[in-house]
């Protein structure tokens, strides 16, 4: 699941410089971790615009609390935990996760999942069936209980290790693995109930 990312030791040095008032050092930390932070926020709040707000708030909060970073965990894990907490606050505050997730679209206005998986291979009937199945999977993921949905989206984003996800959502690694497996099982159950194999 994990992607190779920058050396955590370098992050500590950047944090130390940022604490001394070096703005460029913090900018470098933002540059390094923005992808992971934005994706975590998007997993939680669903809307890219809201996710950007959450990510910005998270970096701002991290900057203000930089002196409290003790290095017990990596800066990346610390940052992701702040992001997830901010995202949960946002979700509680606005309570529109579901509605926003439904409205997520690509720039050309088409539902992004359909565009991503659109394939011209096969007969028109096969293409239509495939599209229906992808829609059904997306609906099933949306309908999952939040802990399962959050975990599945974080895990399948490919950005985080199970340990990082566990630190974010405050659960043990074994629980994270179980949730991913359970989420898949429920999605397949949903598909089977709708005649998809």
């Amino acid at each position, binding site marked *: 699941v994990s992607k190779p990312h920058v050396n955590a030791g370098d992050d500590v040095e950047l944090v130390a410089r940022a604490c001394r008032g070096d703005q460029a050092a913090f900018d470098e930390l933002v540059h390094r971790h923005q992808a992971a932070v934005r994706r975590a926020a998007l997993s939680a709040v669903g809307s890219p615009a809201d996710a950007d707000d959450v990510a910005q708030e998270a970096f701002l909060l991290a900057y203000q609390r930089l002196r409290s970073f003790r290095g017990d965990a990596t800066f990346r894990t610390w940052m992701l935990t702040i992001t997830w907490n901010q995202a949960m606050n946002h979700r509680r505050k606005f309570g529109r996760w579901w509605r926003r997730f439904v409205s997520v679209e690509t720039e050309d206005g088409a539902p992004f*999942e359909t565009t991503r998986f659109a394939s011209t291979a096969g007969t028109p009937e096969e293409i239509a069936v495939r599209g229906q199945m992808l829609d059904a999977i997306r609906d099933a*993921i949306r309908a999952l209980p939040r802990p399962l949905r959050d975990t599945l989206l974080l895990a399948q984003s490919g950005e985080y290790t199970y340990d990082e996800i566990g630190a974010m959502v405050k659960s043990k690694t074994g629980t994270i693995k179980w949730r991913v497996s359970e989420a*898949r099982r429920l999605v397949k159950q949903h598909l089977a109930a709708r005649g998809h194999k």
Partner: protein
Amino acid sequence: MTNEPLDPIDSVIDDVANAMTAAPPDARFAMRVSARIAEAGDRPAPWLRLWIVVPMASACALALAVFVFVGRPFQGRQGGDESPAPQATSVERAAQGRHGGAERPAPQTARLPELPPATIEPIEVDRLDIQPLVQIADIPIGAIAIDRIEITAMP
């Protein structure tokens, strides 16, 4: 991930989940964060903001006013009482002697105003009429008229 072999549908589920959180890179994101930090740095500390300072100052002024208003009559009584201090008891004199009490001011006690003796008027009651809670009426029971009782022989 796990070492378990994946069901083919699992990989499709994973791909859809991945696509649901795919965020295109945003080159201006870092700049926006820098701007937010700069903006936050220019602003006063949260506790110095107007909508926090004004209510806090008002509350402090109100509390001070209440404190002064409540304390004034008590101080007036203490300051205006020109009656001589009561004589110290022998125990107090002994304590003053031990602790260099010659320099300590005599304790002042506020005198309570004298109240007239309380008189309690007796309560006069002429008579108490108590009505029964339940009145039972007579229940007439008529005789049961039986013309004849026929008893057949048992087999």
